[in-house]
């Protein structure tokens, strides 16, 4: 079966690295703060899948017709984003992925429509092209689309001046820049050092396993990671957590840790959920100025190591 019929493409992953650099053998494009998305497009259908290969199209009905703009059947890799005040807004996108009611989805789609920004092409002309160098895949990507519009676009890139683009991204408070080696091949599911991100804030996925109500009516989430069947305690995050965050978390009776870490006697334990935490880059691997960014549904708990 071809890559297209099989679906189940695992997107290539990007390494975290600071600082930005200039290099002629690399290209640089904006890192848009949204949700990774693989698009399977042919004349009949637009099929969008997240990292876990779950279908996204019910949540983004405004993208149903993007297949009308392609010239050939293809698989595109890119980012699903929602613009708010001219910049990608991760919170809006995350809110949308959590909606279930089709009418609420329709309202949200009319109010803040999403766009798919493609930056890679993995399959075209009935051919798996993941083992072609990046710059040839970029050409295929250009030929795959007849037109761009506000629902589907091709990611723009620049050559050489990675530092310049990163500074601009920082000025505009965008998420950052992705640098890619021009001759890099596409390895599914691999975190390759051929793709590197420069980010203003770093982020990482954690598992929320409970919360603590503080005196001033604020809430801290209890964070963990998962390792060979066990939850490893990682600390708390308070910034970014609202009563809305915890309102719908299903509670459970037992703590997920065999030994209860200090300062968690008042904890309410919840069904484990994956979330993203943003923090300032630092040399020690600690969460500095951590901010809770949101719950995400596109990652399995067992993958949060």
């Amino acid at each position, binding site marked *: 079966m071809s890559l297209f019929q099989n679906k189940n493409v695992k997107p290539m992953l990007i390494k975290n690295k600071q600082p930005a650099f200039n290099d002629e053998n690399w290209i640089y494009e*904006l890192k848009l703060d949204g949700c990774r998305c693989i698009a399977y497009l042919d004349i009949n259908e637009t099929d969008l899948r997240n990292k876990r290969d779950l279908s996204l199209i019910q949540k983004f009905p405004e993208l149903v017709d993007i297949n009308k703009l392609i010239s050939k059947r293809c698989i595109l890799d890119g980012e699903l984003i929602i613009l708010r005040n001219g910049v990608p807004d991760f919170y809006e996108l995350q809110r949308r992925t959590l909606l279930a009611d089709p009418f609420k989805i329709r309202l949200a789609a009319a109010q803040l*429509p999403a766009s798919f920004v493609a930056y890679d092409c993995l399959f075209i002309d009935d051919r798996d092209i993941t083992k072609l160098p990046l710059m040839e895949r970029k050409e295929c990507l250009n030929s795959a689309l007849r037109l761009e519009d*506000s629902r589907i676009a091709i990611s*723009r890139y620049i050559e050489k001046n990675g530092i*310049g*683009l990163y500074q601009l991204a920082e000025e505009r408070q965008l998420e950052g820049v992705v640098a890619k080696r021009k001759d890099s091949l596409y390895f599914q599911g691999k975190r390759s050092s051929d793709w590197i991100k420069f980010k203003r804030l770093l982020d990482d996925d954690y598992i929320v396993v409970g919360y603590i109500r503080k005196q001033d009516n604020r809430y801290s989430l209890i964070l963990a990671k998962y390792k060979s069947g066990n939850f490893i305690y990682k600390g708390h995050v308070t910034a970014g957590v609202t009563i809305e965050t915890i309102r719908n978390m299903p509670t459970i009776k037992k703590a997920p840790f065999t030994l209860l870490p200090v300062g968690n006697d008042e904890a309410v334990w919840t069904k484990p959920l994956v979330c993203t935490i943003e923090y300032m880059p630092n040399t020690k691997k600690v969460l500095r100025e951590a901010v809770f960014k949101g719950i995400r549904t596109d990652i399995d708990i067992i993958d949060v190591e």
Partner: protein
Amino acid sequence: MAVAHKGSISMYMVLIPTSLYKTTTDNTIHFNQLDKESKARIRYKKYCSHCGKEVSSEDIVKGYEYEKGRYVTMTEDELELLKTNKDRTIHLVQCSKLNDIDMLYYDKNYYVVPDKGAEKPFELLRQSLLSLKMIGIAKTVIGQSEKTIALYPLKDGMIAKTLYYYDEIVEIPRKISKMKLDEKELEMTKLILKNMEKKFMASDFKDEYQERLKEAIWQKIKGNNVIAVDQGEQSNIIDLMEALQKSLEQSEKGNKHEDQAGA
């Protein structure tokens, strides 16, 4: 779509890790109750019908009314002891012919999706059931309740149908007596029905009240300018990317000029 149940199908010596997903969504409009003046949400207070004092959840116990006005109470601990051991495994206990199950027993549907890596044993089960024209009967615990489910193979997947228990099905209120029919009348009726024949398309049937309700709400929101229907191209990701590209090119040109001027 959220997973409704996670558990492995256990058959013979094999475990097939799967997830069950709902097959339906609640499409109906739900209203909140608001105060007419302030438009704030209405909340309920619970109070004791005997003395009128407000009660919180700690003050409440569960009681079963076995006779008018007389109750036996059960504490949470007592209930906890009785609960089924949370065995989420889907135990395959037997296989039956497709038409063994009376339609009356079917309750809810779930999509059965194999977890990553379990696709092959799942496919073996599906294809075997399909070619035998059989369904698997299994037991599991979904949420807090013990369920019997039928694993129903399809051309491109599998559906789990939860079944009602035998004692949940009630008798028809009155047995219908068989009438002797005139052959001609029967042919006539069949002809009329034949004339009404049309391929069933689920999308032909809609809840028209809900459609009108949604349209009315949609119009109100639009009237309040909450939805900017015509966003035009002003907020376009392409513009953002190209603006940054241009400003970089310009600054590079600027630098070159400076270099030349300096040289």
